[in-house]
């Protein structure tokens, strides 16, 4: 049975799981792009800004499926 989505409570502030997933995904995408820049792998992409968006979407789906269920 998949886990039930629930709000995140930080102190008494309740955060929707989608927000937390989005923030984590943005952080992970930024980290990945930094890494790709550093290793000069970004030159193999035609339009990196779109890749950044795509990575963010992929991370949202991944984190939302396996780590913090949406």
């Amino acid at each position, binding site marked *: 049975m998949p886990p039930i989505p629930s709000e995140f409570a930080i*102190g*008494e*502030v309740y*955060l*929707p*799981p*989608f*927000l937390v997933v*989005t923030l984590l995904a*943005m952080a992970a995408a930024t980290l990945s*792009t*930094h890494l*790709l*820049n*550093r290793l*000069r792998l*970004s*030159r*193999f*992409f*035609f*339009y*990196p*800004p*779109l*890749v*950044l*968006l795509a990575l963010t979407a992929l991370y949202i789906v991944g984190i939302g499926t396996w780590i913090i269920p949406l």
Partner: protein
Amino acid sequence: MLKTLSLGTAVEHTRAIRISDRTRVPLQTGLAMVLAYGVGLAMDWHNLHWAGLAVAVCGLGSVGESLHKGMQRVLGTLVALFLAFVVLNQFIQDRWLFLITLSLWTAFCSYMSMVSARSYFWIVAGFSLPLLTIGGGGPVQTFDVIVLRAQQTLLGVLSFTLVAVLIFPVNSGRTLAGRTTELVSALRDLSREVLSMLSRVTATNASALEPVRLGELRTRATQALGALPALLAAAELDTYRVWESRLAWRAALHDLAQLNRTLERLHQNQKELSAIDLRGHLPGLDTLHAAVDARLQRVIALLPDLGDPEPALPSVRVGDAAAAKINLDLDLQTSDLSSFDRAALALTRQQLDQINRLTVGLRADIEAIATLSKGPADGDEQGDGNRPASPFNIAVLLEPERLRSIVRQQSTFWLAVLCLFYIPDMPLSDITIVIAASLAMSLNLVPQVRPQTLIAPVVVALLFAGGLHLLVMPHLEGFAALATLLFAVTFFISWLFHEPAQAAGKSIGLACFVVVMAVDNQQTYSFITFANLGLGMALTVGFLTLTTYVPLSFRAEDRSIALIARWFRSASWLLGTLGTDAERAEQAQALGFRARLGYHRRLIAQIPQQLATWSRMLSAVAVGSAGPAPMQMLVTTLQAMSMRIEDLLDTRDAPHSPAMARALAEAVREWRLVVRDMLARSAVEPGHLDAAELRARLDGKLLQIEGLMERAMDEDRDFLAHLTLNENSYRLLGAYRGLSERLVGFAQAAGEVDWSRLREPRF
């Protein structure tokens, strides 16, 4: 206002305590904050943070600067206030029409803020419309919100003005005079350097020049020139003498800008003059040098007193010991110079004449300001008095770099709107749209700044203000305790961020403080409001970060490459316009052509400045092992080429010698077309030029034209007939050669740039 000014003047003159600016401005801001909150609470007004924001933003170094910014804030709010009624009346029932209207208005205001000298007025007018219409808590309360906003803004501006006038007042006049003195000193040093260089430039000692020192002087002059128009506008408000002599001040600033530009052009001539004994051919050069120096020294001596409200009138010697004529009857035909040396000499002599005229005019303007007499520029519009208006001049309305910024601003606005509507999980409120519009508009003024850099100051400011709101405020009793807190925090933030370069930090700190504190007579403490505001701000910065890359890229590498390409396209187009007299007469009739000409001329003048800013932001990864130096050199050569193209366009408008045209027309046309093609190709591939090959081709072309000139002198009896017309033609030749020389310089600089690294796709 005059009464207020005289009161301020009186207080200033009776003050005995001296206080540094670092302490004075925070003191005034803190007291104004207390006064604004005190009045607002006494009147039982809500949303007092609007008054606090007005104090935070308008608290500047002097009465005039604060008043100038305050007036822009009040007027911008009033314009938006009127529009808010119209928009609500017309579109309140249609969500999308309503949002499109807001979007168009913010786009218009954002563009105007980038082109107008009163950019703050347009920014306030732009973000105030969404603030008043959707940030007010619903249409039923809108009228009250609009009135309250106007009251609070006026309260904040008036509070600061009152405090600034009564307590340690400082007039902008003194700052204006001080900064102008700095500028004139820099220009004096620059003129000394450049004129000394001209006197001693020969092939053997050309290498002994001091580019570093010159670079520093040019930077000093450019920075001072950029700050003076705003200072003059402020000084007109708080210093009666500056207001009385404002036309002479404006004329003086215009002369200073022209002088800076002419000195820069003169400096660019040194390479072409390397084989000429200038003292021998321009006997008045030393006298001019001394006269220019004496005039600027006189101006520097007069300036410091001019900003005082009631200075002692200086003894002004009317008139000016004119410099000796700069060999105005220079016999260009019979001297022992080659044709291109004559061309360089003709160009230089024209620029020296201009420097002579400008310094005479500047001295007359400053003397007119000193004596409050009628200056030479009074009653006359600005402009180069002696230069006839070109039929090609036309105003430029739209500029591509600014349109790109509008795209980013609109993307941010719509992203915030769509997320608010369609993603219920996002903790966004209607105020997020206002913050997004306001931040994006402000960011457009400095497009090279990365929004990510805002994250740290915003988070720190929010945590600090949140801590005060939740932990300190509940323990305060009465207004005295609240006032102490308001004063202490405002003073601390203003004191900490006292440098002009730290203005953004100060604004963020104070804005977060007054918004998060949410002071009210019926005070409430809500952690969730604070947390939502924090998340909303973080998401707004996130939207801005995203729109910096999508749909248009604002990365330094992309902008640098695009600007270089655009510069070359414009330069190539401009060279294509220099056809025959008949072609140009036909072109001058077409409005569309004149508009394009104005557009491209403006681009080639602006792009090197924009490129200088963007190239400084290039990362170490982007410039590769070569480092930033080749790119900076490349920007310098583009700037030099821009000046040469301007010379070329200006000189082409003058009447030319028919005999010289007959002799050289074909060769010059061929030369122009070759250079045009090179420029066009450089737009696509800037690194393709081979400097050595270019030098050889240029030398060959110079030899060919020399040969044609000698033959024409021997065969054409009209050749020596019209001295003035011949000189115009020589100047044209000099401009062509100058452009070609700079193109060789560009090829050298471009050869050292790692273009493949720069073009490499990067996140």
